[in-house]
């Protein structure tokens, strides 16, 4: 059996996936990207290989993606997270689709045709609005753990987004709502609505809507709100936080077959 590896070193979390030659996930691992990407990559490789019960030497080809894609010395190639999230999402749905990847530091809207070929893409501007960093800031302001946000947002019934483009100004809006005695669940839902608004205004959505990335993995209700805002259903692949790494592993397999 041949194996292929994809590693996605993101702004917040690093994810690694090993697939077999059918594209089935044999092993995966994730940890915070930290400050030593090379070491993080090595640790994840060892953990994933152990889970897959293989020797890393059995990996035929590896491909890195994400902010840290240049910091994986054993990788055989690299591609952007835009390509890899598209490829990972397409594997599961095989349709004309718009992939919305919400990461810690940036958001991407990726348009794929019915054959999985990328038509266009758009990243957020130099701004944290509409990203995981925004939610982290709001959680901090509300003295909440980031893991508490999804349940709180789901509990609220009020869709009152924070209006500001700017994360800092949005945090000021949060302070105003705290002062006004607004329920914390409503504030969190407002923050979710704000993220959704920032994404919806980035680009058009055509075809199947697929949400990927760590933010929807940990906050699936945000994907639900995204679907509602776009008057469609938001689909999520299995393990959406691993979609980029999975896509990278699929590219590694494809490149290996092409003899690159």
């Amino acid at each position, binding site marked *: 059996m041949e194996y292929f590896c994809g590693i996605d070193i993101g702004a917040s979390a690093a994810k690694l996936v090993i697939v077999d030659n059918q594209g089935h996930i044999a092993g995966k691992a994730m940890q915070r990207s930290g400050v030593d990407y090379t070491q993080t990559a090595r640790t994840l490789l060892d953990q994933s290989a152990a889970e897959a019960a293989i020797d890393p030497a059995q990996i035929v080809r590896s491909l890195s993606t994400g*902010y840290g894609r240049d910091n994986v010395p054993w990788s055989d*190639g*690299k*591609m*952007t*997270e*835009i*390509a890899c999230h*598209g*490829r990972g999402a397409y594997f599961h749905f095989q349709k004309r689709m718009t992939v919305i990847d919400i990461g810690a530091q*940036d958001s991407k809207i990726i348009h794929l045709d019915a054959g999985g*070929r*990328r*038509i*266009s*893409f*758009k*990243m957020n*501007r*130099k701004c944290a609005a509409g990203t995981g960093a925004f939610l982290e800031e709001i959680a901090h302001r509300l003295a909440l753990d980031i893991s508490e946000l999804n349940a709180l947002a789901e509990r609220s019934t009020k869709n009152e987004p924070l209006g500001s483009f700017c994360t800092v100004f949005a945090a000021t809006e949060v302070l105003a709502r705290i002062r006004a005695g607004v329920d914390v669940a409503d504030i969190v839902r407002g923050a979710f609505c704000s993220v959704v608004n920032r994404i919806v205004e980035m680009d058009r959505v055509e075809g199947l809507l697929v949400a990927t990335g760590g933010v929807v993995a940990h906050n699936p209700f945000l994907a639900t709100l995204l679907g509602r805002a776009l008057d469609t259903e938001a689909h999520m692949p299995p393990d959406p936080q691993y979609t980029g790494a999975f896509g990278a592993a699929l*590219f590694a397999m494809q490149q290996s077959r092409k003899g690159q």
Partner: protein
Amino acid sequence: MAQTAEPKKIQATGKMKGLMGQYFTELMGEEPSGNKMAWCTSVGPAELLRAMGFDVYFPENHGAMLGATRMATDLIPLANAHGFSPDICSYLTSDVGAYLKGESPFQKLGLPGPPKADVLVYNTNQCRDVKDWFQFYSRQWDVPCIGIETPRSIGEVDLTIVQAIAKKIKSLITPLEDVSGEKFDMDKLKDVVSLSKECTMLWKAVLETAAKAPSPLTFFDGTVQMGPAVVLRGTTGAVEYYKLLLAELEQRVADGVAAVEGESHRIYWEGMPIWGKLRDLSTQFMELQTAVVASTYCNSWIYEDLDPDHPFMGMARAYSELFICRSDDYKEKYMAKMIEKFSIDGVVYHDSKTCPNNSNNRYDLPKRLETKTGKPFVVINGDLNDLRLYSEEQSRTNIEAFVEQLAGA
């Protein structure tokens, strides 16, 4: 993966540096020419000023130098604190910051810094900021600031516009005579316009060598090579330089020499250069085996309508035909032609935060052009000089992802 690549050196560049150095020395060196000093916008009536015996200084060139040397990063905040918003032209804020601090890249050339103007002459065909910029110095030095208010978003450059602008240019003569103390001479103007036209047509020929595949030069080369077309048009030095450069590039074409080894994709750069990141961007594109072969920016110093026989009407038309002051309909048609002529695979739009007038992605033009030409695009957020507005990582990823897309990923 591709190897780290070095740009191929254009041999003529040494001559260009000498020519530019001589020009700067004549303007700012220890031996004054005795001529009056006029500041002029880069797409302003330089021909008239030269014909009237002024030494002509172009502060936008200084702005670009402040950006390229990244001195702008420290200087812009000084202008912000003085009262100029961080949202306005960062050439203006860089230059004013440099003035306030008394620093300039010219000092590295052993020169004192920008020369004090006796008169400042603008053309608002680019933007209002150039006028505001010149008026700052006009107040500082108590010298006249005069110019031309060109209409904006022009569709057809019709006779009404040309006649009005020509009349406005003529109206500058008397105040300029008052400053220079010399009478206007039509024959001198015709000579200067003739040289300017020759320069500009040679510059066009230089840029058009990039229509060949592989391209012998890139946009990044162009941002360096354009110096004489900006600051020395109307002189024999500029004409001679571009003859030399053109010959070298034509030889490259004949020999099949590519500016980007293994050229696989051809890109159009729309918008301002990101001066402080030109080297990094050039390297990234080379590593991606992608040649940026054409740009609106470098083409902005091609003035085909200059006419030595009718200098005022010719200048009026040439400076109103400029891309930046045209309507989106015109821009769309122009770019579609360029995309075809240069065999472009995709367009990179630079949305320059402090240069709205030269950020052409903001009114849905990219989508319309993509529909019309079938060529995809990507938008990079940044700025011409203010690197606080630039995200290195996002730009790098955007460009890399775009080239992946062109390759069919």
